[in-house]
């Protein structure tokens, strides 16, 4: 008997609780009550980051490109990145399109860091054009400097074996799996060993900028290849 009454009472309570909760939810939905204090909606959408480069004359002065070349470069740049800056993901996408067989993302990451000279996470048109100016119109010294900067991942002035190994692996990744002969695991490592044997004169395990430039200037192949891409634009 008692249980029957309790059951009924219990269910009545449940029913009332349900009703109350539903009405509170309804009021919240209608916006009359606010629960948490920081329920401010993010009305302000982050406006798209836009960046405008410096004037044409300044760029002309800073780089070794002519006015026309700068115009062509900018048109291509702006077409692909209407907001004026390239972030790392876009950069990786663009670079990956040239190497469909392999995975170019790691190397693109290092490349991005090399171009992003002010390390703000995005490559603006100035960074882009400055980098290109060095690569295409710079002296051999400057080019080698740029390459050293690329290999020196933490920008401390020394290339260690680990850094070189990372770079080497990234380059081999771009080749992909389908190569002949098949790339083995230790191929990058061997390549790094060869590199260090060539470059590291004092055998201290790191390569400094002077060692690097000296060694490269003595190497015929490297010197010739530095002039390979001069007529790209």
């Amino acid at each position, binding site marked *: 008997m008692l249980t*029957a*009454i309790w*059951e*009924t009472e219990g*269910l*009545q309570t*449940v*029913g*009332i609780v*349900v*009703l109350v909760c539903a009405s509170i939810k309804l009021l919240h939905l209608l916006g009359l009550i606010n629960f948490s204090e920081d329920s401010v909606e993010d009305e302000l959408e982050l406006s798209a980051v836009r960046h405008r480069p410096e004037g044409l004359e300044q760029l002309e002065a800073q780089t070794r490109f002519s006015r*026309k070349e700068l115009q*062509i470069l900018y*048109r*291509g*740049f702006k*077409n*692909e990145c209407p907001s004026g800056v390239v972030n790392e993901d876009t950069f990786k996408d*663009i*670079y990956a*399109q*040239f190497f469909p067989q392999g995975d170019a993302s790691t190397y693109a990451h290092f*490349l991005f860091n*090399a171009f992003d000279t002010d390390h703000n996470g995005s490559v603006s048109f100035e960074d*882009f054009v400055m*980098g*290109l100016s060095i*690569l*295409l119109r710079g002296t051999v010294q400057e*080019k*080698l400097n*740029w*390459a050293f900067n*690329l*290999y020196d991942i933490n920008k401390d002035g020394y290339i260690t074996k680990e850094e070189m190994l990372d*770079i*080497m692996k990234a*380059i081999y990744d771009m080749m992909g799996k389908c190569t002949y002969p098949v790339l083995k695991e230790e191929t990058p490592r061997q*390549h790094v060993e*060869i*590199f260090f044997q060539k470059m590291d004169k004092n055998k201290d395990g790191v390569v400094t900028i002077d060692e*690097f430039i000296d060694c*490269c200037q003595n190497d015929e*192949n*490297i010197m*010739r*290849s*530095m002039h*390979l*891409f001069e*007529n*790209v*634009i």
Partner: protein
Amino acid sequence: MAAGVAAWLPFARAAAIGWMPVANLPMPVAPTEKNKRQDELIILNVSGRRFQTWRNTLDRYPDTLLGSSEKEFFYNEETKEYFFDRDPDVFRSVLNFYRTGKLHYPRYECISSYDEELAFFGIIPEIIGDCCYEEYKDRKRENAERLMDDQEDNKDSKLPNMTFRETMWRAFENPHTSTMALVFYYVTGFFIAISVITNVVETVPCGSAPNQKEVPCGERYTVAFFCMDTACVMIFTVEYLMRLFAAPSRYRFMRSVMSIIDVVAILPYYIGLVMTDNEDVSGAFVTLRVFRVFRIFKFSRHSQGLRILGYTLKSCASELGFLLFSLTMAIIIFATVMFYAEKGSSSSKFTSIPASFWYTIVTMTTLGYGDMVPKTIAGKIFGSICSLSGVLVIALPVPVIVSNFSRIYHQNQRADKRRAQKKARLARIRISKTGSSSAFLHSKRNGLFNEALELTVRPEEQRLSKSTSLLESQHHHLLHCLEKTTVSAHNHEFVDEQCYQQSYLEAGLQTYPSRSPSLSSQDGVTGTCCTRRSKKRHTPLPNASAQAHMHPLTHPHAHQQGLQELSTIHIQPLSTSRSSLNMRVDEPAPLNCQSGQITTAIISIPTPPATTPEGDAHPPAGPAHQNVVKVSAL
């Protein structure tokens, strides 16, 4: 490669300097760029609207018209621009594709014109961007459906040489094709109605004997009802057997829904006949009678609305399934709750959960019979929540079903309207075409006239007669050449459309193996006929419409000429009677035919009396020969 990526190739190449110090081997020689052009603006003149863009922009997609050297065909030397005689509005989208790498489909544009432009400029439609692709595909599908509808209509055409079986099947499927079919259609409809009414009236209580309880009519007038039933079932059986006989694929017919309904409608009667008055099975027999009500579904052959409804329900099966499922869930939940809520109250009708199902269903569908009512407060609260949620759950899938039905219904209406308009449209097109063909004969007469007076004609007269345009005169010259080509002993000439006497034609017509690729069976003298399908091929041809070009029966020999068939040939089988020659051909209406019939057959009878062919030769009633040779039509 994508648009902008081509612009980044210099960058990628420059960045390759990063590999150089690492490499052990010498690098390959870089390709030199001979006569490297400075980027220049090129002007594209599309029907007067000038678009300008960089040459590099267009070079991004070298497998299209604008990106390849194909555009040099359109180069205009004087104005130094590329001229395209196309739609400038659509060209906007095309050019934007080069600029941005994405092809967009504008909504206001007609799908077929857009497709044509894309085909012209060598762009495949599959690269339409995701934003517009769905719309494009929807419109394309709609268009294809419409075309298919049009093609299906043509299947209604009567093939002159159908077997009896095919004729019957066609009569069953399309009652409006012949009077017999229509009669049959109405008779069956009438008997279906009679049968259903009989079933209903059977159960109505008729007057009874004074001291007996009311008896249903069925038991009072057993014999009468039995006779009615027998008659109806007889008709239905005969109809079913005839359909089964006529069906092109009997197995498929037997599996179709309509035939199953037919069978279910007549089976109970036969089962009843077979079964004796066995007490055990009479109960089952009574149940079988319920199936007689299925006869009402036979009406769906007569009513298109019913068919649409059925089709809609079939196509909304998933929505209906969802409705059912959600209703079941809700019913179980609320029944359980109501049962436990009402358990306490005395004399509660909610004796078990299944018993509460009834209450829940009645409440959720807002019926509210009132035979089961909650008495406790909790029960009342939950009961009200139940009815509110019921309204919502049922209201949700219904609009989907409704919109589906509306779409299918409108589609059907549109199809009917199109069919009705098509006849008028085609008639008007034919009329305009006859104009051009009669113009030829007219000019030919003038030409002959001129030839005859060649020596005496004066320049002014000649000029007067040259009132036709250059295009027309060239066309007429072409037809003239054709006539001259088909020279044997006598010229075959195009003649005015005059019907030849029936006897003329009765001399049998030989089919000319037409060169139309759409004809299926065309083996010489077998009396197969060209169908309207070939007509469809030929109507777009600009030449004169189908005419009865007959030449007089003056040919000593029968040979098949190499006449090109430019429109349909309507050929009767060898053994048809005169009446079948009256079959209508889809030919131009205004003809001064005696019999009101147009045949495009030209007959040359082997040994006729020799008469010279004239312009408008009246065909003398020649002897009826069995081997008529040739059919030619233009």
